[in-house]
């Protein structure tokens, strides 16, 4: 063993790991290639492939519709950007309401529970219709009856319920001894929550919240029920006019271009934080 080490200038573990790395690279490359080839070769042999290709992967349609889809995507981004912070804030408030320990504030807990139950249970479409058409229908004057405002509110109310539930699970997962420690130092309940419990809770639920925000990004599409022409509606209009599903592929490309870097970056941040602290 020891001579071998001398000979290569490496320990046997390093040699072993080099070998392992090489082998896994080969496995990775070959298995990926195999799957890839199988798809590339087998699928086009199916009798209907030409038609499916023309319906879903039509380059001409893609090129024609993509710029307009990209333009419509701006609206999605805008709605997301103003809804997301509101969702986080409202969700956090509801989660905090459900964690209240003062018996005199018990009604708050009940309200919080009722809120999450109802807004998670009611289909988003209904919330969007009810708030997006119903509230303006009560007789609001022009700038205040905009579907953008009320549609976003519907999204915010719904997603806040999901997000609150995730925050709550994070808060409950922080061990009670952390609260004791904070309280024993004389910190107020609010400070204990803000500086001790929440920072730990939030870190734990980042992946679950990422999940929700990726879902939200796509549910912005529900606003299109009440008028706003965002990327999905635009893709749907093209689909109908051109009788072709390719515009949805274009939309998917745009979404992937946003969500993949975002999740990778979030993962990277999480991993970095974990590394730094241990």
């Amino acid at each position, binding site marked *: 063993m020891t001579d071998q080490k001398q000979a290569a200038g490496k320990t046997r573990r390093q040699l072993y790991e080099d070998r392992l790395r090489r082998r896994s690279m080969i496995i990775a490359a070959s298995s990926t290639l195999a799957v890839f080839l199988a798809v590339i070769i087998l699928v086009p042999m199916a009798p*209907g492939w030409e*038609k*499916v290709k*023309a*319906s*879903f992967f039509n380059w001409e349609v893609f090129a024609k519709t993509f710029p307009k889809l990209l333009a419509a995507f701006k609206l999605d981004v805008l709605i997301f950007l103003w809804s997301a912070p509101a969702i986080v804030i409202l969700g956090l408030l509801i989660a905090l309401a459900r964690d209240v320990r003062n018996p005199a504030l018990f009604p708050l807990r009940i309200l919080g529970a009722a809120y999450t139950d109802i807004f998670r249970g009611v289909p988003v479409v209904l919330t969007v*219709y009810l708030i997006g*058409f*119903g509230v*303006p*229908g009560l007789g*609001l004057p*022009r700038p205040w*009856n*905009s*579907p953008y405002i009320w549609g976003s509110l519907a999204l915010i109310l719904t997603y806040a319920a999901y997000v609150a539930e995730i925050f709550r699970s994070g808060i409950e997962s922080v061990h009670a001894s952390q609260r004791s420690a904070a309280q024993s130092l004389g910190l107020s309940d609010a400070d204990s929550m803000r500086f001790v419990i929440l920072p730990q809770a939030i870190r734990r639920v980042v992946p679950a919240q990422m999940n929700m925000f990726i879902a939200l990004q796509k549910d912005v599409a529900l606003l*299109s*029920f*009440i*008028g*706003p*022409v965002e990327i999905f*509606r635009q893709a*749907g*209009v093209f*689909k*109908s*006019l*051109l*009788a*072709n*599903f390719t515009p949805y592929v274009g939309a998917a490309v745009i979404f992937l271009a946003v969500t993949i870097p975002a999740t990778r970056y979030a993962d990277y941040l999480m991993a970095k934080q974990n590394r730094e602290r241990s």
Partner: protein
Amino acid sequence: AGHCADGKTLTEGTLTIATGNPAYYPWVMDDAPESGNGFEAAVAYAVAEEMGFAADAVTWVRSSFDEAIQPGPKNFDFNLQQFSITEEREKVVDFSVPYYAAPMAVLASGNVKDTPAETEALKGLLWGAMGGTTAVPMLMDAIGPNKDPLLYGDNADVTAAMQANQIDAALFDLPTALYLSAVVVEGSAVIGQFPADRSENPDQFGMLLEEGNALKACVDEAIMSLKGSGKLDAIEAEWLQQTTGVPLIK
């Protein structure tokens, strides 16, 4: 007629016809095409008869627009739910010769029903339309509103938006517009129509068939024959309102 359709239908001896889910007034009355009431239901039975199918040899199925245009086999012989014939759609599916030419009309809410039927005046309104229809390109080309129009999934959503005062006007085919104005949106009015020849692609409804369906020739033949005999006009007169009272848009 005769045996043109023999061996070409989905199920031997019956004709499977698809319509929308739901099917709208005045095209189909009460969402019940089997009754033969309503313009499209009546046309369907007339065509079936021309092709040699008795009324009880007709089976109705429902289909969404998406199912109609998906690649692959269909579960209907032909499908009629106000499909406008367009060049792009022709690439994917087949259409029969048109059975109706629908002018587009403007439905305006009570607040703006005095707007003159002129393109310039109409530009300034807040517009809505049904997303998947040819009304959208028509609206953009013929009127070109100042503000981007809002687009909806179906008639009900458009009218709800109009009732919530979120849009001023919407574009529909004339029979639908007349129906909505009379029955659904209180206080609204149909303030103008585009003559059928006004746009480059006049809106013509055709029956949709699977690409390359051998039945197309039979269907075309049946419709031509109905046109020739004046039966089609009679059906139109029976089920669609008089459309002459609506002013033309200048």
